[in-house]
């Protein structure tokens, strides 16, 4: 069995969902995403058993392009994250009544398909195709099923699309250039290239544009807050939970090993930018009136730290980055789902119109609380492991990076607690707040279970990703 099975399940699942009709769509989508998750687990088992799940077929002979995938621990981890989160996200939306649900869920699955493809591709061309493909469904999800004012939404979403596309086109240029050097776009052959520092600089820069916008790294983040705010929650979860991991993953998989010299020479610039993002995102989050926007800025801060860890080029940094990517994926889905639950009941995203929810629904409050403290990196949660490794790797570069980057644990607490206080605590609101349903709480339970389990016992993930990361570090250090 090779990894293409997951892609096939998701792609045809998307079609099946569309043809299942509006009523059945969500059920089918859930089944499909579960199936893809199960298949991912099967791939994981296969990997653990030492059997390769790679495949390679010739696709285009001129220019030399393959349908190739190389599934190492890192890719499997990301694949599992994607399929698991897709399942959770689909399940979380069961209470929503979408217009044209078949289209909606088909797009969700299609997006999952593209994202899994991005993670497993071993040919830059294929990778690029998946990378771009992932953009289309989210564009429509946000555009058609989004909330807020239509004109504002259009403006924001189109900006998001064009902005990200612009970045990735520069990446494409870099790939084309690499192709002209290597004669192939297979990742292994690209790794073999010996580029001059000048060339590496440009290639690194082109990649950086693409990834900095996608992740996003300060100051390329301007699309983020509005897009998150105006997308439907499912879209926001997909964007923040998985899609921005695509950028981070790509940094690790493509950018650093392909241009190690440039990475080393200009490391500090990118570290500084990432860390500015951490502080900046946190500070801006302090004064947000919109819950989803606040969470968006918190996401900016968190991924800034992840990016910074990756740019330390050390095993600790990379491992911390990957761990934190996974942890952040779950946490951010949980947080946005909490926002969604509130929005379902109160029909608003404005923090000023919330408050006192804890009195009305303590169960929800507790679960929201746990996810929130996980997001601020409380030890014992998964996020702490990542944050710890990241900050440690930053410390190994320069103590000031660790100190300034570490302010996230203070500022994160400040805005998160403030948000929690204004949203959940205080006197009961006049508006009714229906208790959280079993279906909704299941989402939280799963997320919390994951966060706590891996917070205490991250070894399985560690063992999975470490060999792959060691290989990447070796490639970074080959010059």
């Amino acid at each position, binding site marked *: 069995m090779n990894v293409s099975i997951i892609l096939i399940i998701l792609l045809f699942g998307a079609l099946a969902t569309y043809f299942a009709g509006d009523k059945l769509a969500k059920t089918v989508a859930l089944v499909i995403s579960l199936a893809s998750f199960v298949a991912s687990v099967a791939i994981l088992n296969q990997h653990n058993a030492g059997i390769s799940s790679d495949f390679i077929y010739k696709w285009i*002979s001129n220019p030399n392009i393959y349908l190739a995938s190389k599934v190492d621990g890192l890719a499997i981890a990301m694949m599992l994250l994607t399929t698991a989160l897709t399942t959770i996200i689909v399940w979380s939306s069961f209470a929503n009544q979408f217009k044209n649900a078949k289209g909606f869920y088909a797009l969700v699955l299609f997006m999952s398909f593209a994202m899994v493809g991005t993670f497993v591709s071993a040919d830059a061309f294929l990778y690029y195709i998946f990378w*771009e493909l992932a953009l289309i469904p989210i564009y429509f999800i946000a555009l*058609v099923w989004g909330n807020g004012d239509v004109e504002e939404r259009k403006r924001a979403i189109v900006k998001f699309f064009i902005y990200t596309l612009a970045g990735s086109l520069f990446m494409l240029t870099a790939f084309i250039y690499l192709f002209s050097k290597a004669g192939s776009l297979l990742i292994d052959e690209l790794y073999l290239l010996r580029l001059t520092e000048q060339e590496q600089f440009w290639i690194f820069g082109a990649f950086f544009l693409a990834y900095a916008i996608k992740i996003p790294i300060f100051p390329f983040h301007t699309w983020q807050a509005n897009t998150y705010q105006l997308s439907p929650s499912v879209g926001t979860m997909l964007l923040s939970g998985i899609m921005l991991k695509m950028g981070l993953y790509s940094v690790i998989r493509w950018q650093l090993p392909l241009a190690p010299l440039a990475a080393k020479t200009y490391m500090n610039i990118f570290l500084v930018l990432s860390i500015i993002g951490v502080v900046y995102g946190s500070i801006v989050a302090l004064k947000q009136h919109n819950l989803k926007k606040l969470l968006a800025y918190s996401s900016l801060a968190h991924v800034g730290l992840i990016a910074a860890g990756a740019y330390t080029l050390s095993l600790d940094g990379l491992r911390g980055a990957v761990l934190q990517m996974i942890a952040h994926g779950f946490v951010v889905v949980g947080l946005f789902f909490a926002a969604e639950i509130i929005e379902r009941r109160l029909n608003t995203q404005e923090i000023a119109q919330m408050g006192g929810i804890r009195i009305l629904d303590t169960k929800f409050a507790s679960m929201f609380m746990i996810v929130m403290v996980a997001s601020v990196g409380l030890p014992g949660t998964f996020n702490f492991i990542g944050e710890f490794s990241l900050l440690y790797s930053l410390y190994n570069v320069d103590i000031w990076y660790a100190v300034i980057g570490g302010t996230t644990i203070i500022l994160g607490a400040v805005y998160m607690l403030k948000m929690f206080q204004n949203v959940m605590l205080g006197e009961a609101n006049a508006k009714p707040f229906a208790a959280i349903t079993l279906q909704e709480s299941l989402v939280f339970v799963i997320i919390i279970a994951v966060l706590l389990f891996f917070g205490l016992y991250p070894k399985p993930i560690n063992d999975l990703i470490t060999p792959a990361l060691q290989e990447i570090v070796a490639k970074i250090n080959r010059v």
Partner: protein
Amino acid sequence: MNTLIAISILGVLTLIAEIFNGRKLIVPVAVVGLLGILGYTISPYNAYDFFFNNMMVVDKFSVAFSSLFIVITILLILLSHEFYKDVPSTISDFVAIKIFLLAGAVAMVSFGNLAMFFLGIEILSIALYVLAASKRLDLRSNEAGMKYFLMGCFASGIILFGITLVYGSTGTFDTIAIYQISHSTTFPLWFYIGLVMLLIGMLFKIAAVPFHFWAPDVYEGAPGLTTATMSTFAKIVAMAALFKLITILLPSKLYELDLTIVVVAALSMLVGNIMALRQNNVKRMFAFSGISHAGFMLSTLLISNNSANVLFYYATAYAVAGLAFFAVVLYVTKNKKHETIDAFNGLGKTHPLLALVMTASLLSMAGIPILSGFFAKFFLLNELVQANWLVLVIIAIIASIISVGYYFKIILAMYTKSSEEELPSVPMIYAVVAVLGLIINIGIGLAPSFIYDLLG
């Protein structure tokens, strides 16, 4: 050669059919006939033949492009049936003109003598003048025809001047003889002047900046189907002919000439896309988009490997997307005076299939994978990098980014707005052409080698 004859006969037959009141048969017969001709054209695929004192040369290039033209013509004729429903008396004329257009086009890609080339381009031009002005009572159509006619004749004069100079310096119109002379003996410099004037004339025909001004006005004013013909068919015919001319006539690569082409191509990409941003008329927007695509196709002249392949793939992708686009546009703007973007409001809800086709076509033209437009751009840019024209690649990238801006205006209209008016039911044939376009688009995206390796 026989293709040309068969096409001409078919054209005459359609005219005769009108006389015998076979009006209903015209479109089916033309389509079936063209399909037959298509098969006949493709069958001797690897042939390399000369006909009638080298007037016609049949090689892979000509066969491939001829076949492409035939396919496009078939689709256009399919659309004609519905488009000219209101004026049934003239359908034979329109179909015949389209078939003769095809004859001109075939001559333009398989000429062995500049006389054939010249006549081919004149048939093409004159037929298009007629088609552009064919809505006689519509002043906009008149204006479009007139503008196109005046400027086209001007360009024809320049092309003729160019041919004359080539003749003056070599003493022959025969391409093979010219090739031999230009590669062996000395010849007056007029030859290059002639070549450049030919190039300029053809740049006009493909609507490259700064010879593009006619295109938006004419595209907007001309009847919808004519716009489709001009933007998809005529543009790639002219481009293919230009490509063939340059490859045959140019003795060796000239840096100055390449630079000129780079500047023109870059300007076309940028101007076309930037100007398209502020357009509200779909046809006009498509004209500007076409200008930028002309810039892209023009860049194939700069590359040394696979250039014919790249051009052919690009042309196919562009034509297929354009036809699907127009199939939807023709339907949507059917009863409207102006083809504004508002016409697409709410199409995503009312006609999801057409909206999907439209979206796919637009995304393809914007260069989003997995649609063929992406591969076209990728192949082109890839070869451009190999040819060391990185500057042009960057400009092309920037132009592509800009292009997304206006392509999305239509998508936004389809999916975020709602329409107030009821659209008539979708004519079967439009849907068929649209879906066909979509299938080909995705098909050659999934298996690009099928098209890309055709020319070896």
